[in-house]
């Protein structure tokens, strides 16, 4: 009886891995139920906190206002410089006949939960947007600080995001100054990231920023991901051991941006976690 049950389970499991139908059922029922339960409570909490901050707790408001004004002035200076650079890029593009990259639109979303349930072994967050609102599978998720991860599962109104600190996360990056490519892999919660497949003679510096390379259209090019904190050279490996700190603060995420692709950039092919790990094993 037990053997029969086990065989039935493995049959269902294998069939689901091939077709994904049961996963879709679970996403459209379980994930949506969870989202429907959490969203109203989060809304009430946000309203209460907003009322408290705006009408009762005014002590820190003036100080915060002064800080924000100073930050705004700095941001405006940086924007002016960036506008000059942008104009130059446009001129150079037209001179060299280089086509502009396709557009990416930004959609805001709220985080409604972190790692929910007993099967939440992967580093993840739940968002209050689903595929009907632009949060499709593999949609990049960022904050103003940097990349957060990618949408892994999407229901109609709720979605789950795999964070970049998860060991199953892979992001193609390039160093900002030296343009050295690599793959950033997570090592677990509150841990550093590892940049893999960096050749021993590739130029790289501690403190250098890692940005998305834009390869395969998975992420827009140039999004900040992490900052290099250490580089080690090994006698027995073909690659440098590069460790980096993620730029986005993943502990207190409340709002994120979903980056939707509006152009003709080729979509990243469906790669299961199995395939990514197989590639890893072959390269090593």
């Amino acid at each position, binding site marked *: 009886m037990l053997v029969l049950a086990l065989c039935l389970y493995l049959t*269902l499991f294998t069939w689901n891995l091939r077709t994904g139908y049961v*996963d879709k059922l679970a996403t459209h029922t379980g994930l949506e*139920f969870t989202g429907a339960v959490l969203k109203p409570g989060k809304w009430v909490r946000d309203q209460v906190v907003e009322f408290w901050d705006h009408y009762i707790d005014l002590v820190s408001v003036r100080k915060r206002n002064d800080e924000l004004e100073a930050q705004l002035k700095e941001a405006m200076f940086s924007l002016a410089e960036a506008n000059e650079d942008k104009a130059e890029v446009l001129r150079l593009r037209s001179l060299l006949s280089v086509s502009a990259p396709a557009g990416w639109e930004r959609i805001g979303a709220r985080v409604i939960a972190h790692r929910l*349930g007993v099967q939440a*072994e992967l580093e993840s967050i739940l968002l209050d947007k689903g595929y009907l609102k632009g949060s499709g599978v593999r949609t990049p998720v960022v904050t103003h600080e940097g990349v957060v991860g990618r949408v892994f599962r999407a229901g109609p109104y709720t979605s789950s995001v795999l964070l970049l600190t998860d060991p*199953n996360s892979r992001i193609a990056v390039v160093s900002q100054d030296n343009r050295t490519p690599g793959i950033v892999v997570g090592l677990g919660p509150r841990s550093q990231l590892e940049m893999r497949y960096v050749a021993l003679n590739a130029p790289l510096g501690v403190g250098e920023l890692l940005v998305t390379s834009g390869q395969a259209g998975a992420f827009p090019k140039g999004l900040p991901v992490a900052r290099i904190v250490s580089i080690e050279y090994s006698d027995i490996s073909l690659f440098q051991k590069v460790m980096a700190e993620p730029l986005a603060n993943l502990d207190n995420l409340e709002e994120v941006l979903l980056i939707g692709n509006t152009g003709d950039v080729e979509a990243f092919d469906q790669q299961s976690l199995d395939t990514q*790990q197989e590639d890893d094993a072959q390269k090593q």
Partner: protein
Amino acid sequence: MQGSQPSLFRSLIWWTVYSVCGVWAMYLVPGVDFLLPGLLCSMQEGNKAQTIWLMLLFTLIQEGAGLLAFGPGLLWYAMACLLFYLGRSLFEAENIVFILILSAAMGAGHVVIGITMRHLQDVAILLPRLVSDGCLNAVIIPLVWFVVFRLRERELRNVNAA
């Protein structure tokens, strides 16, 4: 605890409220299953149809909220049912000691299921997290069961009185 059961509508409301509270509790304490104690109470009531429906609902919630492929949630609840029905032949099903032993076994089972999925689905799952979640489940499930059991007893007493 076995006796006359509440009406379908009343059961629906009760278990819906329980599921909502369970989801909120899982939001507050990630990695712990706050829905399993309800399933245990349902098995103790001896209501098979209710148990099957609850198992289905809770499996879909757990599988939907997680990122792994479908499978670990089903294994988790199937293991709970198997351990309960096997243990019932040796222990008194409504005894807290039985629930403590069952929860400890489920905590260990959580680690086993995680390691199994690690190989079956070829995903990287951190062992320290599996172990810490397993320990949390072993400790918290009996406490939640105690509260749910008392509430359920009161509910069934009200139904019998009515």
